[in-house]
């Protein structure tokens, strides 16, 4: 019977990613358990096979396309297409809804009282917390990267 915690460390052991203490623990287990040792050897063969697979080299056309694209402004169609994508449209609709709510409350004037600037900011932050958090994590602040950032939460939520 394979000890599961040790088995879970086997790939990291093969990759040389364990601490010295864990490395010694796995070595001892391998010496004592032929089934575990066979699995370790199989993992080593798999890793070697995969890492030896050929992979494509970029073409010169890619370099030309990227360097030529540096000065090319996005066309109106491309901008519209980007802003109509759900990952951008939904936060934008959320912000529009928040703005409408703020306007509604402000119009009620004396009955409710105007929102303080800090509260408006909090509302905005709360409305877009996930996006803003990810902007901060990635070190980006540009709206141009909302699409990239917006997928991070779903990526993190994947098991």
């Amino acid at each position, binding site marked *: 019977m394979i000890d599961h915690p040790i088995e879970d460390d086997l790939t990291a052991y093969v*990759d040389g990613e364990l601490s010295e203490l864990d490395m010694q623990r796995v070595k001892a287990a391998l010496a004592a358990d032929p089934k575990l040792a066979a699995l370790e050897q199989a993992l080593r063969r798999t890793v070697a096979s995969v890492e030896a697979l050929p992979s494509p080299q*970029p073409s010169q056309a890619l370099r030309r396309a990227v360097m030529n694209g540096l000065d090319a402004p996005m066309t109106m169609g491309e901008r519209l297409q980007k802003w109509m994508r759900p990952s951008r449209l939904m936060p934008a609709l959320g912000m529009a809804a928040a703005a409408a709510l703020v306007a509604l409350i402000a119009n009620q004037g004396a009955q409710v009282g105007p929102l303080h600037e800090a509260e408006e900011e909090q509302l905005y932050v709360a409305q877009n917390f996930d996006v803003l958090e990810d902007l901060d994590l990635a070190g980006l602040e540009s709206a141009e990267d909302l699409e990239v950032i917006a*997928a991070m939460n779903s990526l993190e939520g994947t098991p």
Partner: protein
Amino acid sequence: MLVEEDEDARLMQRVSDGDKAAFATLFDRHQASIVRFAWRFVGSQGRAEELAQEIFLKLYRSAKSYRPSAKFKTFLFRVATNHCLNEVRRGDYKVMEPQKDDARDSSEAVGQRPDDALEGKQLEAAVGEALRGMSERERVAFSMCRFEGMPYRDIASALDASEAAVKSLIHRATLQVMKQVDLLKAGLSATGSEA
């Protein structure tokens, strides 16, 4: 290695000042990694280069907002990961379905004998099958580890996950590939014994 990574961060800051030569240096240094990474998602060199082009242009246009709070390569792979996943989720691309022309080109590129090339193609297909069966996080972690040689710590940073989580993702992914390769070998040996 650390010096080179620091140099990447410095280059990126020069890019934010509009230095195209600095961007070209960064591009030349990392284009192969990004094309390989994208190729593992879409299985076609042409499509992988389209994605790489979009990723690098995005990087250039966002340069003013770059903060060197993480290693540049980790930052780049975080952007690349999200871009590739967005494109795959949008349905424009499918995960790792190698096209015949690409498989032939990659085998010929390394000068393999026909028998080896055949086995290489089958191995590539087995790896592709395993990649398709993985979760997105397993696929990303596995690709960064096996094809880019990134250490677990950097992968954890790129995925905003703990090293323990990355260890688990890579272990599960490697076991899946091992099973597919075993199936391939079992099929090859059965074919060999029939002949």
